[in-house]
């Protein structure tokens, strides 16, 4: 009976959510080598987003924080595979939060680097085409969407992310916040995300997070968001 339970339900969707996905839209494919998650290269130098986000933050954020999520996800993944192999349900369940946290951290940051760009690579240039129209339809204008997004960011207590997401069933756009490293899964898929963890801005902005939220739009890569929108 326990093996039947494992074939359905929370365990599989949790594993599916944190595993690399192949999908018809230009969704994220997490970088792997021989089945292990790896840290993706940044498409730009650490200092390329200055003065909006300084090079020291980018270096720590990518080479330390994101790397730790990758390493810890691999450890949790190994633990889960062993527990599945042994039919050890208690360990499987105990490992789920680790997969969610570290797999979520790996997913979120991989998406984040893609949806940032230096100004000379299109950072800050407004969206076009279908996504731009959908933003106008749902929020009234790009500026109104940004205001709502920044309000959501400011409202996050502790650590988390705000995302522009698309409802996979209706195609509608929405702004949602997620705690800690909870990934965008299930009914919604991610279009654009902004990291509101203190490590994302503290060395430069200290506690002035509203300033970080206002400035980061200068380096948002709308081209990446366009590709995620269906």
């Amino acid at each position, binding site marked *: 009976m326990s093996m039947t339970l494992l074939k359905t339900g929370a365990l599989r969707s949790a594993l599916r959510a944190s595993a690399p996905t192949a999908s018809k839209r230009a969704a994220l494919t997490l970088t792997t080598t021989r089945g292990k998650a790896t840290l993706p290269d940044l498409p730009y130098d650490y200092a390329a987003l200055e003065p909006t986000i300084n090079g020291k933050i980018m270096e720590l954020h990518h080479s330390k924080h994101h790397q730790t999520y990758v390493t810890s996800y691999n450890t949790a993944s190994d633990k889960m595979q062993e527990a599945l192999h042994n039919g050890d349900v208690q360990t499987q369940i105990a490992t789920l939060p680790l997969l969610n946290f570290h797999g979520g951290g790996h997913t979120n940051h991989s998406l984040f680097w893609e949806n940032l760009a230096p100004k000379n690579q299109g950072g800050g240039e407004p969206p076009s085409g279908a996504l731009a129209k959908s933003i106008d339809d749902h929020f009234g204008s790009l500026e109104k969407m940004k205001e709502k997004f920044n309000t959501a960011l400011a409202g996050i*207590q502790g650590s988390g992310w705000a995302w522009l997401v698309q409802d996979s069933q209706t195609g509608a756009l929405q702004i949602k916040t997620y705690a800690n490293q909870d990934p965008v899964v299930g009914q919604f898929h991610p279009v654009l995300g902004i990291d509101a963890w*203190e490590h994302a801005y*503290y060395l430069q902005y200290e506690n002035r997070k509203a300033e970080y939220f206002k400035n980061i739009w200068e380096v948002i890569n709308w081209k990446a968001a366009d590709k995620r929108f269906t």
Partner: protein
Amino acid sequence: MAFTLPELPYSYDALEPHFDQETMEIHHSRHHQTYVNSLNAALEGSELSGLAVDEVITKLDQVPAEKRTAVRNHGGGHSNHSFFWKNLKIGTTLSGDLKAAIEKDFGSFETFQQQFEKAATTVFGSGWAWLVKKDAALKIVTTHNQDSPLMGEAVAGTSGFPIIGLDVWEHAYYLKYRNKRPDYIKAYWEVVNWDEASRRYKQSS
């Protein structure tokens, strides 16, 4: 009667080199101040604003629903940080009844330290690690965001009277320790105020 930012019992550089001056200054004068300001705003006109903050956070069910989250977050922040500043001092030694109780409930001080470090390291995101007195025993618990064990099980997922506590929000350590939270946690042992902890332990009996 508004809540106010308590003064630190020491200067911003008093905990150097373990807790750096810049962090202490920003942590106290900006982060904690913001919790105080926001709590006053959330409780404006409420009778709860006449109570001590440690009491307010045990009475969240009496706060109107639309204000409850704000009072939980900012009241928790004000309570936790007021406790934290007193919980820090260089050069104290664990002794007496508290030492005996830690050895009794954890086997040894080293075991207690290891367990506390593990708890503090593995908090996902923002939160606190605590040594609390609960049902006549000492326990290590953690809380999320600005929750306090004083808020009780239903709100904070845990309960107990705090004896020592460590802020593991990134703002508490990032300027000096960057992503290396374990190094910050190790440094905590150099600044934890065992005199205050012993006083609180006696108070809780």
